[in-house]
Structure formats: C-alpha cells, structure tokens
C-alpha cells in the first residue's frame, strides 16, 4: 500500500491523455476490485483517474445508431444494478440480467460499472497474495496454482488450490480464470466493446477483448495502456436465453462453472444456438464447436450433451489441493446440457 494521487478530469479525452502519458496511472471506476488491490499491494499506481462521471451512465435504444431494432447501447459508467434492472435488458436480454444478478452482492453491484466489471481481475488466491509467486502479478516469478519450483507438495503432484481455476485454454504460465458473470452474459450476445484510446475510438468484439494467458498472463485483455472502455453495444437477439451459475454457495461466490446460452428453435431443429462458459478459462469461453454441431440438429438432451462433450474434448483438469478442479469438466457438461434442455423445454411450452 502506498500513497497515490487522485484526479477527476473534465472529459474522456483528458482522462485518456492523463493515463496514456503516465505508465503508473490507472482508471478508477466503481473501485470494487481496484481498492482491494491497493490495500493488498497487488497494484501500486501513482495516479488514479476517476472516469465514473465521464463515460455515459445511460442505456439507449440502438435503432438510431446502426445497432438495429432491439439493440441497446450501454454506457461504461452504467452500474451493474441499473443494467440488471433495466426493463429492456430484462425483456430482450434475459441472460444478461440474470448474469448480472448472479454476480457479487447488491452493494457491490450498486458500485460496480459496466466498464470496470469487464476489466476486473482474476480471484486466483495466489494472484491476490503478494507473498506467493504469480506470473500474472509478477511476470516470470512462477505460477503457484500450478507448481512452485523448490516447493514440493507432500500430498499430490505439486499444484496449489485450483478449485476456481481454468480447464480450458490455460498455459504452463497461468491457469487463472476471469471472474465476471456479466462478461459471460455479454459474450453470448455477440456484444461489442467501444474503446477510446490515444489514437481515437475503435470497436472490439467482446469475445476478443479478453486474452488467453499464453506466455503473457500479465495481460488480461488486448487493451493497451491508456485505452478506456466507453461503452458496450448489444445487437438484437432472437430466441430464448438463460444464465446459470454453479458455485459453492447459493449467493456471493464466484462461479465454478457458469453457462450463458441463447437457443432459437424453429421447425423442430436448432436454428441458432450460442453458448458461453464462465469460470473455466482466462476469458469468457464461447463454445463455438458445440454451437456448430448443434445448428440444424434436433434440440434433444442427447444432442446437447454430445455437442458440449465435443467442446470439452480439449478440457484439462489440474490436480491440486482438495481434489483439484477436474470435476469441472463433467460439471460443465452437465450444466450446459441442463440449461439447453430447459431452454428447449420452455420453447415448446413444457413447464420445465
């Protein structure tokens, strides 16, 4: 923990310039993650640039702005609570409202912003403890979740506590997961992220915002220093959607596995399906292989299960304390199957 300066610039351009020019500057949104990190010493910026009153806190209909009828444009400063409660979000993007309400607590959702939520960092217990090695926090220091050189584990093969860790897309350098529920709900909606950088504005598909860890786990996203998220665009959606979060207690816990799904059935076959998984990777995981396999297929539990099992072919558990996280592979398969099964049943009017 060390002293820092606080700045509240007059507009977003000033804010971007302030951060872009100072390598030790960071943006401050709701602060629900950053303030913890300041206390714990995970980050120690010299300057906090408050953007909560600079970016839009409005949710606007997209029909005038090229998004298409039914789309929504969400300002980066929109609080999670407000986004979840917006009647248009609840009606058109049920999956997103459910995802938001599955995250954190009422108090945190009242503070947390749309932009900040996307940029929250992993809750890996080794990342969050400066006394344990972590490649994401300190590149090259090692991954304590996987194995620590010189620190054999007496009870298993050397990994740490991996219950909240990835089964997909991890690397030898990092096995952390992205903790956001909202991002999973947006990933399945093909949302787009508006970014303002020193060189102007650009739009990034949400599924391309977050990275896999590879050999640079210190980089959570493709954003460069100084880039500011100004909003999220939600294109119109067809079909039914749902978010289901499976966790170790019924509220206020990060996902072991979460599933966001959109299902559109016509003439007895799947016309469109989109599935994203949370809690399983360094980013919201779009199950594109499963989606492809299901398009045009009959919406049956057997087909759903076969598709997600195909998606999970490359999934790998990590042995570790308390049994590791391999259980998340069958859990992910079961949860996706159940969510699609229930969506299909609701399509056909079956009460379940």
């Amino acid at each position: 923990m060390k002293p820092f300066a606080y700045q509240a610039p007059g507009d977003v351009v000033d804010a971007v310039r302030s951060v872009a020019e100072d390598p030790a500057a960071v943006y401050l949104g709701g602060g629900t993650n950053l303030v913890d990190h300041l206390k714990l010493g995970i980050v120690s910026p010299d300057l906090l640039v408050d953007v909560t009153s600079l970016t839009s806190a409005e949710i606007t209909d997209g029909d005038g702005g090229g998004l298409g009828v039914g789309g929504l444009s969400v300002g980066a400063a929109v609080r999670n609570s407000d986004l979840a409660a917006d009647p248009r979000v609840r009606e058109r993007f049920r999956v997103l409202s459910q995802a938001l309400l599955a995250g954190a607590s009422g108090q945190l959702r009242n503070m947390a912003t749309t932009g900040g939520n996307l940029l929250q960092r992993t809750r890996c217990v080794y990342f969050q403890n400066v006394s344990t090695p972590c490649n994401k926090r300190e590149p090259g220091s090692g991954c304590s979740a996987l194995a620590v050189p010189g620190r054999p584990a007496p009870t298993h093969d050397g990994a740490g506590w991996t219950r909240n860790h990835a089964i997909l897309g991890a690397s030898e350098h990092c096995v952390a997961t992205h903790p956001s529920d909202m991002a999973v709900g947006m990933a399945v909606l093909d949302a787009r992220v508006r970014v303002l950088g020193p060189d102007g504005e650009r739009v990034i598909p949400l599924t391309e915002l977050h990275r896999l860890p590879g050999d640079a786990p210190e980089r959570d996203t493709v954003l460069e220093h100084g880039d500011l998220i100004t909003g999220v665009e939600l294109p119109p959606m067809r079909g039914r959607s749902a978010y289901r979060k499976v966790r170790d207690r019924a509220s206020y816990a990060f996902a072991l596995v979460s599933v966001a799904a959109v299902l559109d059935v016509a003439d007895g076959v799947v016309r469109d399906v989109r599935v994203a998984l949370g809690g399983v990777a360094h980013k919201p995981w779009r199950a594109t292989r499963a989606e492809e396999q299901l398009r045009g297929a009959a919406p049956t539990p057997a087909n759903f299960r076969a598709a997600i099992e195909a998606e999970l072919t490359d999934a790998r558990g990590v042995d570790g304390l308390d049994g590791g996280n391999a259980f998340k592979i069958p859990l992910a398969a079961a949860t996706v199957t159940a969510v699609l099964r229930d969506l299909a049943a609701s399509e056909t009017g079956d009460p379940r």
Partner: protein
Amino acid sequence: MTEMLEHQAIGRGPARRDGVRKVTGTAPYAYEHPVENPAFCHPVQSTVGRGRITAIDTSAALALDGVLAVLTPDDAERLANTDDAELAVLQTHEVAFRGQIIGAAVAETSEVARQAADLVAVTYDQAPHDVVLSDSRDDLYRPDAVNGGFPTDSNEGDIEAALAAAEVTVTQTYTTAMYHQNPLEPHTTTARSEDGVLTLWDSTQGVHPVRKAVAKVLGLEPDAVHVVCPYVGGAFGSKGQLKANTVLAAMAARAVPGRSVRLALTRQQMFDVAGYRTPTIQHVTLAANRDGTLTGIAHDVVEQTARIKEFAEQTAVSTRSLYAAPNRRTSHRLAALDVGVPSWMRAPGECPGMFGTEVAMDELAQELGMDPVELRVVNDTEIDPDSGKPFSSRNLVACLREGAQRFGWADRDPAPRSRREGNQLVGTGVASSVYPVYRMPKSTATVRFSGGRYVAEIGAADLGTGTWTSLAQIAADALGADLASVEVRIGDTRYPEASVAGGSSGMTTWGSAVVEAARAFRAKFGADPSDGDEVEAAVQANPATDDYAMFAFGAHFVEARVDADTGEVRVPRMLGVFAAGKIINARLARSQFLGGMTMGLSMALHETSVMDPRFGHVVNHDLAEYHITANADVGEIDVGWLDEHDPHVNAMGSKGIGEIGIVGAAAAVSNAVHHATGVRVRELPITLDKLLG
C-alpha cells in the same frame, strides 16, 4: 439443592438493552473507542513457514513521514514472561509458522502504518516446514489431557470383542476441515500506556482473563492493567484466550507512551494468528444387536496442534456420555505442526466429534433398516455412561419426538434416493445434540442500591449474546424487583472479577454470582434498602455435581435438496429442538440457537480453510473464498425448546445455550444429503463435486 428463583423476568423475551445503541452505531467497539489523536499499528508477518530471521531492515519504513516506531525482535521490549510461546511476541528470531507476527509499524495513520509494515525487509534462513495432518504420521502423540481437563483416553469393557461378537457393525472414518471463527468484528484493540497504567479497549470474551494474562506477560501488577470491552461483534471462541495481537497492541502503546494506539487485524491476518479449529480425522466404530442396542462405541481421533503450544481439542469426549453401551473406547492423538495455534471455536470437542458419531449412527440405522430416530431412542440412557451418575435431566428422547412431529418425520420413506421433485433429489436427516453444563469456579458480583435503582456490576462479557439483558432479568428475579429498576454493568475490569465467556458457562457462572449477591443484599438490607447499600458475593461450587451429570440435549432435523444435474445442495428446512433447562430470554435464546444451527449448516456445506502445504498458510483467507452459508442457501430455520425443569443446575434452572445449536447440525445435513442422493459424504464440507455423477 440451591433454592430456585421464582421466575418473573426470567423466561420472558425482553429486547436487548444495547440494541438501539448497536443499530444506531453509537455503541463503541474496541477499535472505535473515542480517544485523542490515535496512532495506528500494523503487524509485519513472516513469509516463511519455519526458519530463522537473519536480518531485518527497517530503514525504509522509518524514513516514511508519519512513522512513529517500528518494532522488531531486534529491539522490541523484553517481555517478563515468555512461557507461552504464542504470546512471546517479538522475543525471538525463530519463525514457528507462516504469518507469525515478526514486527510492527506504528504510525500517524493506518495507511502509513500499513505501508511502513510492507517496507520492512526481512531475510530468513528458511527451514522446511511441516503442516500436513495425517493419521498415518509416525510422530502422533498422546497429550496428557484434552481441552477442558478431560482424560485423553477412555476405555471400558472390550471394544474389539464387542465388535467381533456384534450382529451389525459400522466402522468408518470421518473428517472435519480446518475452520476459522471469523467473527464479523476482527480482533481489535485500542491501547494506551500512561502514568503507570496500561488501558486496553480490547475485543474479548473476558476483560479479567485479558488483564491477568497481559499483566503476566508484561510483568505488571494486575491493577496496572485496565481492560474495557462493553461490546463484541462476535467471537465464537477466538477471543476467549489472549492472542498475539493484543500483546502486540500493548507493546506498541508502550513504545509510544501517552499515545493511544489502534490495532485491527485484517481479515487475512485473522487466518494466521487469531486461532482456528483443528481439522480432525475420526475413526468411529459402532457395534450393535439386531434390535439396535449398541454393544460397543469407539471414537479415536487424530488432530493437530502447533509445535510452539499445545491445544488438544476434546473431540471424542461427548461420545463418552451420549449413548449407553457396555464396551467403550475413546482416544485423542496429536500431530504437532508448524502452524498457528488452534484454539476454541464454538463447541470445541462436541462440534466436530458429533459429526463423526451422529453420521455413524445414521449409517448404523441404515444397516439395521431402522428409523434413525428410533435407533437413538433405543440407546437412550438415564445414567451418564462415562461418570456413572444419573443425569440431572436428560430429554434427548423428548427432543427427538417433539422434533419428529413438528418436522413431519413420520411420512418419510427411509430408502435413500427415493424422493425426486422435478430436478431435485430430496432427503431428510436427523442427528442428536449434546452439550455439558459448565460452571466456572470464580466470578463475583456486586449489587448496590443507588438513586432508587438496583445496580449489579460484574466484569462479564456480552459477545452479542445478550448478557446485558439476561443478567438483568436474573438480577431482577433474584431481588424480587422490576426488570426496569435493575441496571447491569459489565465489560470492564473496574467491576468484580468474572470468568471468560466460554463453554456456554456465562449465565450459570455470572448469573449464580448475581443471585448470590442479590440474596445477600436482601438478607442484609431487607426489602427497603438505603441509598448506597452494597453487597458483593461470589459464585459457589455446585454440590449437586457430586450426584448428577449435567448436560443439555437437542435434536436437529434437516431437509436437503440436491440438484440432480449439478450436485448443488440447498437446505429449505432446518429444525432444532433443544432441552436446555429454563430459557432465560426467549428472544435472545432463539437467536443463539439459530446462530449455532446456521454455523453448523455452514460447516456442513461450505466452510474449509485450505492449507497450502507448499507455503504453510491458508490460501482462501478472506470472506470471498472462505465461504460461510448465505441466506440463499437455506429456507426456514425453525427453533424450538422444551419447557425443561432442572432443579440441580443452578438457581435459575438454566443450562448454557451458546454452543449446543452447532452440535450435531452438520451430521443432520450430511444424513439428509445421503437420504436424498444415496451418497454418503464423510469428509466435510459436502461440496457438489462429491455428489456429481
């Protein structure tokens, strides 16, 4: 037999007297006690699991603006008594466990203190640490006694012969996790050393025990230590014995004399130095006849302690008294590890121990094809099998019967995995609960008539349990006075000596002292006292303990619903029925029982402190990752009690209720989950991965 009080105020449910102050934020807790210009202290902790500090560089910390002092083993004051290694703070360069306090920064603000503590650079000569509990270790040892002063082992009859001859047996291993008490209010102190007096506003379960222990460690006369604690934001045993944080706060205050110093452990630090419940490995054996009669009970426990200080949880002791059987054995063996010192946590002994015994009873019922309520009824006993004395009162069977009726137990299909509603597997489970009646040997109360009111003073504690209110009810009835005319003063060493709030002994001990003082007051001054009339009297030993064994009993009933796809467990209904003598305050008692049951549910489904053996510390050391049951995990928690009359326990006829609510609760949940799914989870917590597939 003590003459019983006529119950007037006792048994009613007056609201807590400190309630308005608490909900309006005007009740000062230890860290908030108003003082002039406070300084702040932040501990430095070891980052190795074992070793020796070879150098400490404090220059960067001392160079910060606002730093008043940096304390290290190099130059901290030498303590007068270092017999208790947990309290010998900064007296050695040896590191005994990871997270041990090895220094502290004192500064003008809490932020600077924390920054300075971060800047203290420590180098170590690191040694390998050993933190893994296992029942196959070759260095397990037999402690001389277990917590509470109970014999380590017991052996009666021949359990092996009983096992060989039995028609039905159960032999299983059950494990409970490491648990941290996690009161909402962390361990906090405001300390000031001035004019030869050390004043500690400390969050504690007993101001007098803190005074005694601090005086000993610092080499002060007890009169030179003044401890104040009117309110506590939860403790659950973790503030029952002096811990290193309070000693450190006192040392910090003595380093800046005349200045008040505040120290609050962070949530993460509480996982290192504030105590915890040992994990347990329990081998339970039951031998029974076909009719369910137990012929043998064995409960052999392996658990851990710290290498620097022994704490031996009495995990198997309650098994000695719960059910009758001619052949009985219990034992406790310890592994001494490079870990922080375990300590009391709500119902030490009974809580983990009854998980093993009461799940084993469920397994036996299943083996026998017998209703688990009936199995417990069959093995009820009027004589305590351990002491051979009759129980002063024992209404376990009545609790089971009343609970079964209230819960709707009769409709239950005993077959596991027999009930499915939609996508949920539904089951119900039962378990017994037991907790001893303890009376501490020492506590004194003063009763005074002042300004037309009666004032009772005793240095007792209110952990949020309601002592401010319930002691007033007792005093009112003992004086034959209106409750409104009685004022109680507690939580300060200015008041007479009182025992620790532990072992659910508070009402029995302090209440008896208040009754003694009130009766002496009436005997001396009659019904019409003069202003300033005052009497002091102490709790007496209870001669009835020579003739009776004294316990409270209870029964838990739980409905569990398990998602057939994901294994997620939810508990829509939980019922506890207790027989705990006269309930002094119905409103506060309900809250105590409910809190204990909730903590038991939490133990069953969620709580586990994950020790990483590579580093030697608990990695999930915050409330985001150390999961405590949330409202959404449970539906209705129903609490009931019997109107139990016990003339032997004390003048109120009351038994302690702070702990019995947790005892057996986790077993009832596990038994319900088994009934729902057919999966028997013997290792807590019952997480969904254990039920998948």
